[in-house]
């Protein structure tokens, strides 16, 4: 079960009860921006500081190196992410 470190503080297990990382973060009461929830608008962009995610569907939004889209991904390894402020 991959561990998710959020903003350098909270560490939570990704236990599979959320279909994607955006829902997972929302369940942790983290405010993440979103719009489409389908990988094409880019609103949910977060920083991936460590680890890898796998995409459930190929993201159409522009993703810079070191960023990822939580709405259409799940952790592949333990990850460390940062929600932009």
């Amino acid at each position, binding site marked *: 079960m991959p561990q998710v470190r959020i903003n350098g503080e909270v560490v939570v297990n990704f236990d599979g009860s959320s279909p994607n990382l955006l829902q997972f973060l929302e369940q942790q009461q983290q*405010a993440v*921006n*979103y*719009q*489409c*929830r*389908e990988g*094409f*608008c*880019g*609103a949910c*962009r977060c920083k991936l500081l460590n680890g890898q995610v796998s995409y459930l569907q*190929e993201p*159409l*939004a*522009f993703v*810079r190196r070191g960023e990822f889209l939580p709405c259409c991904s799940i952790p592949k390894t333990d990850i460390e992410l940062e929600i*932009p*402020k």
Partner: protein
Amino acid sequence: MAYTTFNRNINDQLKEPMFFGNAVNVSRYDQQKYPIFEKLIEKQLSFFWRPEEIDVSKDRIDFQQLPEHEKHIFISNLKYQTLLDSVQGRSPNVALLPIVSIPELETWIETWAFSETIHSRSYTHIIRNISAEPHKIFDDIMLNERILERAVDVTRYYDDLIDGINLYQRCGEGTHQINGKSEQITLRELKKRLYLCLMSVNVLEAIRFYVSFACSFAFAERELMEGNAKIIRLIARDEALHLTGTQHMLNILASGDDDPEMAEIAKECEEESYAIFMRAAEQEKDWAAYLFKDGSMIGLNKDILCQYVEFITNSRMQAVGLKPRFATTQNPIPWINTWLVSDNVQVAPQESEISSYLVGQIDNEVDTADFGDFDL
């Protein structure tokens, strides 16, 4: 240099830059330099919708019962959106097709602009329904100072680019005597105009629409003008895709991978890019003030809307590699996101969904007859 509709040069399309290379000859997608643009095309096609499929009949009654200041908010936003989509329905084609050099991007531009024509037609659908005199609303767009003010900045960068392309494709680089006037153009200057034009388009689609979107959804949160909100959701979904397309173009250009000179130009244009974003944000705040000049609406007022403009401007700036310039870091109207989610947007291309639209229409008729004497 002159544009040709079927370039006879046998070229390797995979080696062409996105813009200002050889004009496209064969529209082929078996090989692609940037497959993302074909994916955007497919997504856009999967979004296809027609305004006539959305039942707006209940909106007529809602609209009649809105207080005057809310009618002003509603109509003014529609006028502004009509302006924006009038521009967007033609300008990507006119400005970008003469200079694009790869087929998947050419077709994305055409697909993009086509979807804007659906938006334009939807405004007529909405306005015909709420007003017995739709011409008065449309006629005012060309007379309304607040809208015209905006039109200047919305169109300026397109027009500069188009003007430069015309000169360049006719006469080439250099200084030319045109109708007794001396005009100068270089390819580098054109690239700069292209980059700024894309920035300004991104601002148009990623920021300028959102004040209006917020108002539409604020009405719908009160179960008012819901047909309109349904159409606006479809428009917002399309716009989210368009702004992604433009962000891809901007970021590919700025990376220099496509054309090394473009990376320099992106750097050179940084200050002006910031200015384009900041100016648009200020104009949208002024627009919010104009909308609410005679009173706010439930759930929204000028200050909240201005904060939202700042929030969304920050996020759009970051998407194209600029630093956020506003202090606002929280979305002041998080409920708007639930209206912007794409998966529960109802489209009606299949039969089953068309019938659900018909059911909706019948329901609406029952509603109005049953509650005729009551305040809805």
